[in-house]
């Protein structure tokens, strides 16, 4: 049987290494609290904080986590830095497992190799089994993106006459585009420019579809 390298990598990250001795000393209930805080943090943290409320909520949660950690540490006469180390270590264990999409068995096997206290191992595996899908989905939606088109309104006008010349009879298009960030633009598109736009979008769409035909990319997907 060939030896398999742990999902954490050949060299276990220092954040996790530092956590192990500390974990042995802490009480189980305390570690469970920290673990639930880790999960809460993972659920609210996003890179793409579009709305102000989300940002405020994240700040609120991080502040409350910080307070809870310091308060509980003081209650149990434990150095707050140590509890932060435990927080970081647990966060890393879960984050790397989710990113690499390890199966449940591998997760359990590698965690046991780390020689963490048994209750902690059971807690971690429970969380990975139940919340794993939810957390993966969240991080899939948390992409770094340019603003996206949220709405496009348009109308076609025919200019009958203008102050420059009294007989025009040319069509022209008026568009309003809104994007995710709230930016809004109302602008006029002449017929020539409209054809340019339409051609470019069609070409882009065709190239996108051609991309899907490339064999090597679909093989990458299946890996």
């Amino acid at each position, binding site marked *: 049987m060939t030896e398999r390298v742990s999902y954490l990598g050949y060299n276990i990250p220092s954040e996790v290494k530092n956590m192990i001795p500390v974990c042995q000393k802490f009480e189980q209930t305390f570690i469970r609290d920290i673990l639930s805080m880790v999960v809460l943090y993972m659920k609210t943290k996003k890179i793409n904080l579009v709305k102000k409320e989300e940002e405020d909520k994240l700040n609120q949660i991080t502040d409350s986590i910080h307070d809870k950690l310091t308060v509980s540490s003081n209650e149990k006469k434990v150095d707050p830095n140590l509890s932060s180390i435990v927080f970081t270590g647990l966060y890393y264990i879960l984050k790397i497992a989710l990113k690499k999409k390890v199966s449940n068995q591998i997760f359990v096997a590698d965690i046991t190799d780390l020689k963490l206290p048994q209750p902690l191992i059971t807690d971690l595996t429970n969380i990975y089994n139940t919340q794993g899908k939810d957390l993966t989905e969240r991080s*899939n939606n948390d992409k*770094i993106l340019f*603003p996206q088109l949220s709405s496009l309104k348009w109308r076609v006008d025919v200019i009958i006459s203008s102050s420059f*010349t*009294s007989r025009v009879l040319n069509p022209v298009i008026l568009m309003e585009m809104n994007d995710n960030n709230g930016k809004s633009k109302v602008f006029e598109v002449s017929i020539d420019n409209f054809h340019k*736009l339409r051609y470019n*979008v069609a070409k*882009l769409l065709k190239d996108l579809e051609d991309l899907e035909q490339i064999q090597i990319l679909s093989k990458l997907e299946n890996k």
Partner: protein
Amino acid sequence: MTDNNIFGNTKRFNDSIELINKLETPKFQKILSRVVNKIGHKSERIFTESEESILQNIFKITSSEFKGILECCSFIFEQTAYYSLSPNNLVNQLKKTMLNDDKTSCFQSVWEDNCESVLNFLRTQSIAPLQLNEVGWRLHYQMSSSTAIKRHASAIMELDFKTDNSNNNNNNNNNNNNNNNNNDKMILEFNKEQLLEFYNKLENIQEKLDTLA
């Protein structure tokens, strides 16, 4: 005596007509062709300052008289363009003013040569503050990232706009430094479904345009 003179009968107009009548015809024709090329282009100078002073010396007129003459010629052409007069109709209208016949034929020949291009230009003039100018795009295939796990394709489009500066100059002089980059372009990202939706909307617009034609 109330003929419908599209040029009106103001004193300023008539004074400029008198001045024009005194100019030499061949040189006047050259001035006219310059003037006609500039109508519709707001705020562009017809002659540079040095050219103006040279012309004033040749014709032996003051600068205010020269400006008056230029304005009068521009006015005549603008009215002609507005009513889309043929060269013959222009001659008829000019006969109702006090312009000499040789100058009238100058106007006629210059208008004959240029009326197509001038009218086409004016028809495409727009007063919208923002117009679509250029479209650029990139197709990306995201292989990996620190947050998302799945690979996906994304299309990025950049739409450049042209602002109508002549009206905004006074209002925006203070804002210009901050907003210059924001006002003139829009960057959008699409995945496959969004791009398809956008494309379908553009197809709808095209359908409506086809029914017009």
